[in-house]
């Protein structure tokens, strides 16, 4: 029997294809900007750039770990090796064609990384990792195509805005205005960290994409974009899961042949 080949996600439309691309760890996501690592650290606000990582246990190499077969099986990620704290970055994605949406973030992270813990809500999506690994990951996801300066927010608290109309510059609402519109450069600039503590320098995350571009990049199905029901395969996939689960819990013999 041939080995199972991961298909990641069904569908023929652009949101479906984007979901597939984001989930497939073999796909290298496009880098659209280069925010300096120190600036990523500043925006997250867990430590100052250059400051040592705080640790919660001694480095694993010191050999103080209990004798546990599972621990022997798992190769620790860098942060775990060094005993780093677990820290987070949390993104808010606008319903108005943000490049990615919360569940797709979860699927993408879980498909591409290990040693992470991710939580998914309607208005925000958190990812928690050992600190030094988090920084690498956070930079990747601020720099790459899943981030848009106007429609993605880096928000540790008071995340309200995903369902709000955009402002006149096309930015997603943020009660704490962590980022502002630079009208001269036509760029979005972070002036506060993710929990709204003022930054000592302005950090540009670049120009927002055009709506026409975002509609090609998004994972969101919408009536005024690509309607999910126009993607027969995605629609049928959802209905099939529902049908099989229903039958499985009710008349399991009918699942045969489905």
């Amino acid at each position: 029997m041939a080995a199972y080949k991961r298909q990641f996600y069904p569908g023929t439309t652009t949101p479906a294809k984007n979901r597939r691309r984001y989930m497939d760890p073999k796909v290298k996501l496009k880098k659209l900007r280069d925010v300096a690592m120190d600036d990523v650290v500043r925006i997250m606000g867990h430590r100052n750039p250059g400051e040592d990582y705080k640790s919660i246990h001694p480095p694993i190499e010191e050999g103080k770990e209990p004798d546990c077969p599972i621990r022997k099986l798992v190769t620790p990620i860098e942060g775990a090796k060094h005993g780093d704290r677990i820290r987070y970055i949390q993104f808010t994605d606008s319903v108005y064609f943000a490049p990615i949406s919360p569940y797709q973030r979860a699927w993408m992270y879980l498909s591409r990384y290990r040693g992470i813990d991710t939580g998914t809500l309607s208005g925000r999506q958190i990812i928690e990792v050992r600190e030094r690994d988090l920084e690498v990951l956070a930079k990747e996801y601020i720099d790459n195509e899943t981030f848009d300066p106007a429609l993605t927010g880096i928000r540790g608290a008071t995340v309200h805005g995903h369902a709000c109309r955009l402002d006149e510059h096309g930015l997603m609402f943020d009660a704490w205005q962590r980022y502002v519109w630079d009208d001269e450069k036509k760029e979005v600039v972070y002036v506060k960290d993710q929990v709204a503590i003022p930054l000592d320098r302005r950090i540009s995350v670049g120009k927002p994409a055009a709506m026409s571009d975002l509609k090609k990049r998004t994972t969101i199905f919408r009536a005024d974009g690509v309607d999910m029901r126009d993607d027969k395969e995605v629609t049928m996939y959802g209905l099939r899961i529902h049908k099989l689960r229903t039958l499985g819990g009710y008349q399991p013999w009918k699942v045969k042949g489905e």
Partner: protein
Amino acid sequence: MAGKEKLFMEACKKKFKEEPTDVSTKYYCFGGWKQSKSKVEFQKTADEIAKKRGIPMLNEDIGVPLGQRSWMPYQLSHTDIYAEADDLHCVNNCAIQQAWDDIRRTILVGLDSPHQTIERRLGKEVTPETINNYLETVNHTVPGGAVVQEHMAEINPALAWDSYVKVYSGDDELIDEIDPRFVIDINKLFPAEQAEQLKKAIGKTLMQAVRVPTIVGRLMDGATVSRHAAMQISMAFISSYKLAAGEAAIADFAYSAKHQSLGMGTMMPARRARGPNEPGGIPFGYLADMAQSDRVYPDDPGRASLEAVALGAIIYDQIYLGGYMSGGVGFTQYATAAYTDNILEDYVYYAIDQIKSRYGGFCKLDPANTDEVMKLGDDINAYALEMYERYPAVMETHFGGSQRATVSAAATGIAGAMATGVADVGLNCWYLSMLQHKERTGRLGFYGFDLQDQCGSANSFAYRSDEGLPMEVRGPNYPNYAMNVGHMSGYTGIPKAAHVARGDAFTANPFVRVAFADPSLVFDFANVTKEIGRGALREFQPAGERSAVIKG
């Protein structure tokens, strides 16, 4: 808001033959501003309010007074009452409290068993005359009057004016003989077809609806209601049938009143630390039966479902999960999404139109036709989600994904229930909505119930109690629903929708159904949103107040 606009526009179109897209529509849609007789009065009131009401930041100095607020007031669905979010908090709103008080203080106690005791054990005759005599006595004892012994302390009647006992039965001949002041008259209160069904289901049983004083339920808890009733009923039997209080047979009255009675809420597991007759134990079908819209508006099944939704929201979501289980002030904003601003209204009436045009009416879709059920569910769900996408103001009104999840799934579930007449099909459609919602938008609600919502397809037809139960007898304590905040409203609406669509006179229990048709209740269960609105407007007069014993 746009949902509200939509329904507004629909109303305008029907009433004034305007195109709904005409942005400068000339009418206030409720009551037709131009034609309404109350126009002058409205104008006058509005002028006064405009001057008096405390709008934050109202600035009168700039020519035109200018106010600022985070969003528009909520409109209580299918009413023209507007209120603020905190007007709808269950601690502020005495109508919401009274809805729960009226449920908690109710216990249904059958008279058949005590009558058998009197006739067979004590050899006394029971006749309509003795029953009337008993009812007169019990209407003295249940509110807190003493009989039998002297020197007994009594409850101040001014504190217990809401307390009484009434009876009902499917036996018209017997009921004809009972003093009408003590009767819940099925024939008068229900449309003829519903009355026949109810009388057939109830049969010859003579049932008492016992309403203990609101203040008793508040001072103790729901579990005390059967005890208060049992004690006072026993005293009434002793007095009216001239029994000797020490006889062993007397214990039978107390036994039947305590243990052969029907509480509104079943017992919950010990870990919930609640007695019976508390909100967590009320099956969805019972609460659906308490909602009385289809008795008064039998031709509007949409309203019947939506009123059940509203009752579910206040009793389960706001009081039980928001108060009993969680504590704090949190759940109002979330729960009110289901019964304000006519948004769910729009989705449900759309669903009803679809069912009628596709299948020619309710209950015509074969529940075993899974593919067609899924097609309908998918269509209704897509319509609801599309409205959020097309009307940004609706998206902002239901700014939490959980609100959108509940409201879309409630509409889809109600559609499935009405199309097939089977509540469990409706429930199955609820879960279909959840899965397709997540798939479409890439988001759903929050950790608290995303798991339950995504795994429910598998248990929606499960009938064994450890797996599921039919929807009519599931309740907020069903494991996967035990913390499903904001969902209880929809769960109540679904079984209601199924049975209203079938033309059934009741959802789960005919006795509960009749008991809440009683016009003597303080809360009007046929107009749930209106009553909540009256609470918000300070027009509702609750029971259980202590002012009679407080120096004024």
